[in-house]
């Protein structure tokens, strides 16, 4: 009973807080734009609609053409700074943009006269600095952009990293003491994309941590487990800044952190370091490398003589699987589908050619053309989320869709250390952006959006793990078992 009362009290408190926040928000933002649609009360919605209607009617009267919001007055697009403004304003409303846009249907064709409606604070907004110097979260309010912007859908993500060969990373001054030189080297290879693929990136990171731990000497006055955790965390943060870490890296780091926190107070530094290094080696060997060997073995049981296997991207475990199946004397051929921007299929093509397997190499546009003859679709995943979503190279969702249309089974190879408790239902909420390719020349009204990962929600027949082939729905179960 008492617990229930507590719950009630808690609820009431939360409610009060919510109300307070809402009031604050309303004070800051009379138009109520930066909150999702659902948060508006009925009355608010009606009021807004009426305002819009009024605005529309105003427009109908010639000579009294008034745009509905501040951005409208820039809407002719010739002004590039207005574009930036709209990009910026959309930053923290990105997910609401679609909704909000529907609410604020405003044909923007007129540049003049300046807005005269009830948006005194939006006039101020025109003077806000361009996107680069201000992050969206600093803005006290925001308004929907004049048009829905595909790029603004991704403005919550960090801008794409352009692989720069000569880029040297200077560690942040206040933490520079803890940043190991090998971290800087690693960061450079990440940001240059010389190390890619979730397995390779994870192993490279662990090797880097091994060096850090090897060189680590705990300060006299500090507890090793605490201090080493701090050092590792700082290094990891720098690594993450060079390029968003993959789930495999995150999981490996969590594993390492757990090991470090388990170091006892009285343990000798050298022995503790030895143990740590050994554990990392074990992790690399067993959890990463051995796992993919087992996956290759498990997966190769699904390869039959005469099979035509379609693969996408260049996964280490899929490569191993092909080698294994060939070793078992199976007669099959492979269709490598390649997709921009990574074009990893070329690497796969080279590998399969070395193995002597008959390969058909096609572009992404040929998916539907080649899918008819395929008997099995196989690709590797970057991560598996506990809601059963498969995170993989962008394009894999398309491959899965077309496979589904032709009723072809799709198997995804994934080591269990890439399983994550996170959930994601589309590829927009969390992703990594890719830079604009050189062939594409952007113009004032055109831009580029590229993403690195796809989230495959359905259509996957099974996941090949080192524990066998399981359905995607079992990810949560396996995660629980592993704990």
């Amino acid at each position, binding site marked *: 009973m008492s617990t229930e009362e507590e719950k009630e009290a808690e609820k009431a408190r939360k409610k009060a807080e919510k109300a307070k926040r809402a009031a604050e928000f309303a004070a800051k933002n009379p138009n109520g734009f930066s909150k999702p649609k659902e948060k508006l009360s009925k009355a608010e919605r009606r009021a807004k609609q009426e305002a819009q209607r009024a605005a529309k009617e105003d427009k109908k009267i010639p000579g009294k053409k008034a745009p509905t919001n501040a951005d409208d007055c820039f*809407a*002719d*697009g010739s002004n590039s700074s207005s574009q930036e403004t709209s990009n910026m304003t959309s930053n923290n409303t990105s997910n609401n943009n*679609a909704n909000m*846009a*529907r609410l604020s*249907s*405003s*044909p923007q*064709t007129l540049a003049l006269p300046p807005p005269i409606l009830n948006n005194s604070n939006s006039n101020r907004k025109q003077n806000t600095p361009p996107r680069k110097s201000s992050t969206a979260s600093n803005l006290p309010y925001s308004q929907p952009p004049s*048009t*829905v*912007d*595909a*790029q603004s*859908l991704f403005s919550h993500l960090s801008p794409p990293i352009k692989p720069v060969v000569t880029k040297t990373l200077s560690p942040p001054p206040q933490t520079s003491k803890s940043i190991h030189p090998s971290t800087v080297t690693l960061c450079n290879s990440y940001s240059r994309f010389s190390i890619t693929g979730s397995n390779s990136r994870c192993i490279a990171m662990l090797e880097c941590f091994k060096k850090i731990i090897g060189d680590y000497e705990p300060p006299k006055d500090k507890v090793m487990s605490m201090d080493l955790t701090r050092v590792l965390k700082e290094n990891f943060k720098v690594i993450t800044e060079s390029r968003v870490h993959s789930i495999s890296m995150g999981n490996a780091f969590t594993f390492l952190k757990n090991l470090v926190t388990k170091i006892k107070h009285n343990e000798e530094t050298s022995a503790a370091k030895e143990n740590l290094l050994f554990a990392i080696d074990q992790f690399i060997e067993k959890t990463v490398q051995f796992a993919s060997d087992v996956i290759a073995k498990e997966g190769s049981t699904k390869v039959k003589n005469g099979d035509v296997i379609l693969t996408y991207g260049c996964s280490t475990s899929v490569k191993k699987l092909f080698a294994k199946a060939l070793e078992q004397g199976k007669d099959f051929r492979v269709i490598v589908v*390649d*997709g*921009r*921007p990574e074009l990893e299929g*070329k690497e796969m*093509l080279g590998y399969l*050619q070395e193995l*002597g397997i*008959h*390969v*058909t*190499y*096609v*572009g*992404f*546009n*040929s*998916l*539907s*053309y080649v899918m008819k003859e395929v008997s099995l679709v196989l690709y590797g995943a970057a991560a598996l989320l506990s809601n059963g979503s498969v995170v993989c190279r*962008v*394009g894999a*969702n*398309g491959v899965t*869709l*077309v496979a589904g*249309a032709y009723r072809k089974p799709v198997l995804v190879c994934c080591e269990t250390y890439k399983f994550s408790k996170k959930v994601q239902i589309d*590829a*927009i909420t969390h*992703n990594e952006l890719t830079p604009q390719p050189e*062939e*594409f*020349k952007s113009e*004032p*009204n*055109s*831009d*580029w*959006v*590229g*993403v690195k*990962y*796809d*989230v495959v929600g359905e259509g996957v027949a099974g996941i090949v793990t080192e524990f066998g082939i399981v359905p995607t729905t079992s990810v949560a179960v396996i995660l629980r078992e592993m704990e």
Partner: protein
Amino acid sequence: MPHIYSPTSESLRTYLSTHAHVLLALDTFLLSLRLGEFNNPSYSDIPSRPNEIPGSPSFRATDSGELKEEINKEGRKVSRSALTLKAMELVRSIVGTTKWTSAGELLIILEALGRLFHSSYAKDPCLSNTIRRLMNLVRTVEEDLKTPQPTPGALSVNTNLPLEGNIVPSGALSPPNNISRSTSTPSMTSAFAQNSNNTDLLYSNLDRFRSDSISMSETTTLTEEGPPNPTNVSGIARKLPGYFFSYKAEFRQMVMEGFQEVIDDLEEGRREINEQAGLHIHSNEIILTYSLSRTIENFLLHAHQKEKRQFHVIIAEGAPHFGGHVMANKLSSKGVRVTVINDSAITALMPRVNLLLLPAHAILANGGVVAPSGSHLCALSALANKVPTVVVSSLTFKLCPMYPHEGQDIMQDFVSPAFLGVGSESDNVDLICPVHDYIPPELIKLFITNVGGVLPSYVYRLLSEVYCVEDPIVFKG
């Protein structure tokens, strides 16, 4: 005066032998087709084409000056509608200048042209479709002339009767019921009423009876070099009823007017499609489109400029041809906000898209569409996200009477795998670069055409309006 009896290349050439300039124009056009100057027009705007065929040969006749100029001016940028228009004008000049005498003969000429076009350029159905359309037009005009306003009394028919009986040389061969049948058809009266010339009447009546009688050879021997009739012709014309081979004075003019209407249709088609833009695009919409399409470009521009709609277009680049880059530049230069994405990111962005617009290479009888390769994935992804897939296309020359399972079904075509950018000497590697995808009708929500919005399930019905079932589905010699 030469006549044409069979829809072969040779007979057409013999028929055209007295019209050297027409024959020359035809040959020049066929040569351009064979040289691939009209190849894959949907990809003709590719910025860099790895294996460019060197410019148009210099041995081309002066007659082709205009054509050559157009190609040179824009550098292979000849759209399919321009190609169709070109073909139409050629057909019109052939039909307009030569001395055919009857609808049947005209149909033979058209069938011969269809075969020639097909053998020179089978990969694109637009030429065959145009010819088929013209053939249907000829049939319709002929049927109209056959059944004009029914004349008031049967009296006049009766007065005609003895005349017919007298004229027919081998009257005994035609049984009385035959006569009564033919007289009951108003065409006889119409021929009488409108043709004061007796010889014309004679011809038309003769033909009428010839088609009904069994022993034709006797009469045809009289006119060895005479006009074609159902027995001395081959091809589809064999199945034509006899009255198709009768001369009708106003027929030529009506056909030429009809041709002009078809040409106007071609030119107006785009405008009619564009007029619907406002009905389908709302403010602040995110529209996804694939690669390059002039029809969609114009459609979107109309919505932006005329309908004053603000929307955002996401364009899939359409690798390996990158038509999407060209499309993006075209649209953005006119003020449309565009974002270009990799083809692989289509599925990632689809959940936020409101509308998918796809171009069509051909629309098949079942309502399926032949579209640029890669667009099948777009349609699948759209369906998975409940985004409506709308095909914007003119029906004037893209509507095909064949179903996707018949023979050459989806008109697949391939281009050089050099586009893939992978060099391999190995025998163990296949490189494929197909041009088209077939999109089944169940993935398509709507067609926006020059005759309005059409459901895929209604396409078959439109077919019967523009084509005649008796005309060949494929023009094969």
